[in-house]
């Protein structure tokens, strides 16, 4: 068969080959939607998280009392129709404090997770893509952070910088970035060797473009999973630290409430049960969601 030129050739092709069918889209999004349909725990997690976020946003509407209003006449009252979760040793409404506490706790969950996500991603990408000395330096620092007992490290930071919510963010970011950096580095290393990255290099695509257009987007699903699992981690760390007395005494977080209620644990169990359960539910909700997302995203990442 002789070709006369490009045009004749194209015409022939359009007759012969353009019938190609393609598969319906089964992208990440639809596999996530599918996951929620099958994985009820993840769906429950998502719903609970939405409710908690809503609670934080609408705190003044939900709580009937000012969380900081003292009422010395009603000290340490057990749960009742007027005070659903009872009152604490200063007569403050525990329900209102739990509702408002969600603001602090969610913030403590989100802010350091965002910071450590950004920091860990940038450092992980640098270590994985640039390799050699940069990799060695970043990963050794990460190793030191990971080898240090996290709680101890965070407490040292708090003691040095002082107990404030800002320093709490810093402390939690410091203990969290290294894990993210490791994951991102490992993925960058494997993506860097993929044929599509090699293809990009063979076409003369620049390094920054390869990192931001090819490697980062392919890390993203895992980063989302990591992020959803970092949040409950941060909430837990903050609770532990508040319990041990190194939290911000003015930030009314759930962890601080448990800490303050611990002296009355036997007499007034609601003082630690209410915030304790709030922590438990929140952490579990995020973990359910994170695990579900991981299940949905992992098989997709393999193809």
């Amino acid at each position, binding site marked *: 068969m002789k070709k006369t030129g490009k045009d004749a050739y194209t015409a022939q092709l359009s007759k012969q080959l353009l019938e190609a069918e393609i598969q319906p889209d089964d*992208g990440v999004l639809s596999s996530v939607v599918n996951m929620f349909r099958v994985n009820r725990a993840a769906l429950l997690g998502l719903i609970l998280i939405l409710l908690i976020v809503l609670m934080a946003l609408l705190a003044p509407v939900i709580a009937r009392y000012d969380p900081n209003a003292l009422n010395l006449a009603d000290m340490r009252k057990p749960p009742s129709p007027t005070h659903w979760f009872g009152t604490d040793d200063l007569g403050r409404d525990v329900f209102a404090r739990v509702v408002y506490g969600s603001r602090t706790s969610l913030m403590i969950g989100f802010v350091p997770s965002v910071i450590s996500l950004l920091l860990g991603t940038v450092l992980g990408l640098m270590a994985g893509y640039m390799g050699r000395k940069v990799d060695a330096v970043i990963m050794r620092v990460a190793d030191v952070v990971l080898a240090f007992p996290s709680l101890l490290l965070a407490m040292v930071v708090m003691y040095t910088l002082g107990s404030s919510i800002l320093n709490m963010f810093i402390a939690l970011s410091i203990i969290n970035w290294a894990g993210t950096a490791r994951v991102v580095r490992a993925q960058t290393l494997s993506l860097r060797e993929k044929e*599509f990255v090699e293809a990009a290099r063979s076409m003369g695509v620049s390094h920054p473009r390869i990192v931001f257009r090819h490697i980062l987007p392919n890390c*993203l699903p895992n980063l989302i999973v990591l992020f959803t699992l970092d949040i409950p981690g941060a909430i837990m760390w903050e609770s532990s630290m508040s319990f041990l007395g190194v939290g911000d005494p003015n930030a009314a977080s759930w962890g601080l409430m448990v800490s303050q209620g611990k002296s009355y644990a036997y007499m007034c169990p609601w003082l630690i049960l209410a915030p304790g359960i709030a922590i438990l539910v929140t952490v579990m909700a995020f973990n359910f969601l994170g695990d579900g997302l991981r299940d949905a995203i992992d098989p997709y990442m393999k193809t």
Partner: protein
Amino acid sequence: MNELLRAERLVKEFPVKNGVVHAVSDVSFTVAKGETLGLVGESGCGKSTLGKLILNLITPTSGAVWFKGTDLSALRGREQRRLRRGMQMIFQDPYASLDPRMTVGRIIMEPLTAHRVGSSRAERADMVRSLMEQVGIRPEFYGRYPHQFSGGQRQRIGIARALALDPELIICDEPVSALDVSIQAQILNLLSDLQAARGLTYLFISHDLNVVRYLSDRVMVMFLGQICELSPTEPLYSQPRHPYTKFLLEAVPQPDPTLRDDARALLAGEVASAINPPPGCRFHPRCPCADDLCRHKQPDLVEMAPGHLCACHHPLVDREIF
């Protein structure tokens, strides 16, 4: 002969734990404009490494690649990028070679963007659509993702991407070995149509001798990082000079049961490792004709017939069978 590409004494060695991998050892050849040079050999013979050396994806230990009369390694930065636009690559694995998170349109557009071809995004998108049509993918699928396509369709997308910068040379690294037989034929036809329409030059790397025969004007056989035979296609298949080539040709199971021969000679032993290869002729441990000379002295690539080069101390003269 109008020379497009010349490899000059290319050497690539990687240090590993227990020695040095001699991936490519002193390989020189030329490719003329418009021809297809087939490159065959078994795994570990250095054929893929050679392809990457030519594209400068890895830097050679020594030697040079000349493209359109210019030594690529003598150029830096922008100049080199400009010259390298003329060389593109088609990859083996149609699943791994397309970024799963990019749409087909963006994948094909990427080389255009990287080299600032076209004045606007819209103009580039038009170019992409026309490329898609040329390789047999409907332009309507511009916004779809690679995983929605079959292996053969993905390979077409990879070909469109390689064509985007209107290259003169395309290095095809096993472009059909991951595909089913019927799809393989579609892609081979597409490659030869594109060659006819655009005057492309191919360096076609494959382990499949039948495929190489179909597509190539000349064939180069590699063994452990060295060229053992380089010849116009038909003479190589009808009268191989190197014992290794002969064995390879014999080993391919032919789709014809009447050609069965349980007594034919098979190449014994394992595919040898390129780590610390044997002295002398690298093929000698597996070669039935090897003697002392082969064990000690490396054979040179000698012209046996016009254009037919062979590196063997005891080349096969006529159609003898051992």
